[in-house]
């Protein structure tokens, strides 16, 4: 029997794994997951009429689940894999930096090669992706993949707000995996996975373009093709529960701490700054929208739902730049985006083409326009002092145990700090791509789905009823009125009514033939 002469502390972490980073990344991912389920589900289901609440919930849960399965079976690698079609990204490293700007360069850095990440090695090995070229990831693939999944999942759920109230459930279940594969993973690879726009220098901290602007545009196109909701539904489009709407909105806001706080991939100072900036921009958005409603709207009343809209504008607008602007920049971003979207919501909505498209929850404004503005404003407000990855030799009284002296600290130089519009230009190019690609592919997919399903919208008869016709469920059923089918068989004996009838009949002397009263 061996005696241990030295007490060895065993830690089951490989050298590349930092438990703090892994913890925060998984926590952040969970927060973002909560933003979908239940936050967005509850928020949207509260904003629609009662007769559409179940339909919203069902599409939320189904959409989230469908993306999850696709993501781990093949799609994660298309957005964040180590190898791209054509080899522009190989083993997580960009190989064609700055060389050849032709079409082949674009297409070699366009899309990751698909594949599953469900094997033990696939899940537990160190995450390798060109999504971050400054410093390697200090957590496993499962962590990075799940974190990226929750972003991929919420994106279609966001634009469900444009198409609800008439899209077929089957059409939704087809649209989600197809859209995610052909729009989301491509935009993700191009902007984050080490693809073309990432290499060109376009930046999107947490997905103002890839998620919000893309969702806004796609939802708008899908809503246009689907046609509007029933006239009566649009005339009575009153939210059914503002208290639950606040539950959804509150979790959406606080969950965003993970959305932006998790995107540096390191639990460091920039993550903390991103969280603060997120909340600053959001709080500003709430105040600005409420103020504009109180002073400028027809009713001149501060509205709670206006505050929620402002909240969303701030959240979306800060998303492309959360860790790269300073606190004041965050306030400007939130304020500017909210003012523009408020004006768009109240005035642009009355002008073609916006007046012709029934974007049921106004996703094109709060996500499309706010996302575009946020991405452009990074080019204006990016503060070179907000260093995302401090590394290399000592920087201003701080030392970093980095091995690479070639590592340069990363930050973004916006126009007001350097006078250079370079970043703004890169942001503009990337925006044009995301808008056009999202619109085009959504258009094609909706047409295809319409062909396959012989129409992607329900008939008017179904639309008039809503949840009961589609799901056989109501959001707020009344127990008094519903009777379980086969209730007598459930009771296992003659019903109370029949027993009493027999008793009354026999007590008054009438003969009762009981053979026909036997329960089956």
């Amino acid at each position, binding site marked *: 029997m061996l005696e241990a002469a030295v007490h060895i502390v065993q830690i089951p972490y490989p050298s590349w794994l930092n438990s703090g980073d892994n913890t925060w990344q998984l926590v952040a991912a969970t927060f973002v997951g909560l933003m979908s389920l239940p936050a967005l589900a509850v928020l949207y289901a509260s904003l629609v009429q009662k007769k559409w609440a179940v339909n919203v919930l069902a599409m939320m849960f189904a959409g989230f689940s469908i993306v999850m399965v696709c993501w781990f079976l093949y799609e994660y690698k298309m957005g964040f894999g180590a190898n791209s079609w054509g080899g522009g990204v190989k083993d997580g490293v960009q190989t064609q930096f700055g060389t050849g700007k032709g079409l082949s360069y674009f297409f070699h850095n366009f899309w990751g090669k698909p594949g599953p990440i469900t094997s033990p090695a696939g899940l537990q090995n160190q995450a390798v992706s060109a999504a971050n070229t400054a410093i390697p990831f200090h957590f496993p693939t499962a962590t990075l993949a799940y974190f990226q999944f929750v972003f991929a999942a919420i994106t279609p759920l966001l634009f469900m707000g444009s198409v609800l109230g008439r899209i077929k459930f089957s059409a939704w279940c087809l649209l989600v995996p197809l859209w995610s594969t052909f729009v989301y993973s491509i935009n993700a690879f191009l902007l984050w996975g080490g693809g073309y726009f990432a290499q060109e220098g376009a930046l999107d901290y947490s997905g103002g373009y890839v998620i919000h602007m893309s969702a806004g545009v796609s939802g708008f196109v899908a809503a246009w093709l689907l046609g509007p909701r029933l006239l009566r539904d649009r005339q*009575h*489009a*009153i*939210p059914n529960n503002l208290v639950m709407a606040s539950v959804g909105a509150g979790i959406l806001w606080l969950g965003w701490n993970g959305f932006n706080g998790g995107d540096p991939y390191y639990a460091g100072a920039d993550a903390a700054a991103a969280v603060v900036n997120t909340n600053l921009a959001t709080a500003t958005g709430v105040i600005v929208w409420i103020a504009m409603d109180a002073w400028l*709207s027809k*009713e001149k*009343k501060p*509205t709670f739902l206006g505050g929620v*809209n402002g909240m969303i504008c701030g959240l979306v607008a800060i998303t492309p730049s959360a860790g790269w602007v300073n606190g004041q920049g965050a306030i400007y971003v939130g304020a500017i985006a909210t003012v523009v979207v408020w004006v768009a919501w*109240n005035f642009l909505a009355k002008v073609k083409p916006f007046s012709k498209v029934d974007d049921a929850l106004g996703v094109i404004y709060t996500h499309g326009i706010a996302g575009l503005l946020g991405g452009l404003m990074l080019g204006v407000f990016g503060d070179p002092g907000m260093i995302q990855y401090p590394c290399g030799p000592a920087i201003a009284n701080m030392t970093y145990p980095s091995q690479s002296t070639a590592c340069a600290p990363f930050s973004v130089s916006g126009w007001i700090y350097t006078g250079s519009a370079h970043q703004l230009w890169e942001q503009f190019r990337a925006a044009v791509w995301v808008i056009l690609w999202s619109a085009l592919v959504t258009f094609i997919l909706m047409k295809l789905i319409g062909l396959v399903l012989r129409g992607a919208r329900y008939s008017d008869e179904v639309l008039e009823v809503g949840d009961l016709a589609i799901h056989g469920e109501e959001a707020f059923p009344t127990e008094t009125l519903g009777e379980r089918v086969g209730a007598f068989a459930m009771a296992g004996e003659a019903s109370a009514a029949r027993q009493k009838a027999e008793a009354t009949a026999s007590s008054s002397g009438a003969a009762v033939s009981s053979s026909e009263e036997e329960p089956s």
Partner: protein
Amino acid sequence: MKLIVAVLKPFKLDEVKEALKALGVHGMTLTEAQGFGRQRGHTEVYRGAEYEVEFVPKIRLEVVVDDGQVDDVANAIVDAAGTGKIGDGKVWILPVDELIRVRTGERGAEAL
């Protein structure tokens, strides 16, 4: 016997109830209703869109009383519920063919 139906402003319920109890009316039925006569409704705003609501919340009170008490009860309701402003409501009186107490099976005036 008569059925007295009163559609009234909700905040007047307590006063009407006390007035009826003082007259010895033993029971009543209350429903929440929406109604309008000459009273204007209001506008609600959700997410920047305005919605006109013509109806105003009301309560609907129903009591069955003996013929001899009808005038007293109706006047008591009107006195207790009236504010002098538009929207006070209306009272109407219907004849009742039969009245039955569910627990005992009593009928007619005994069921009151």
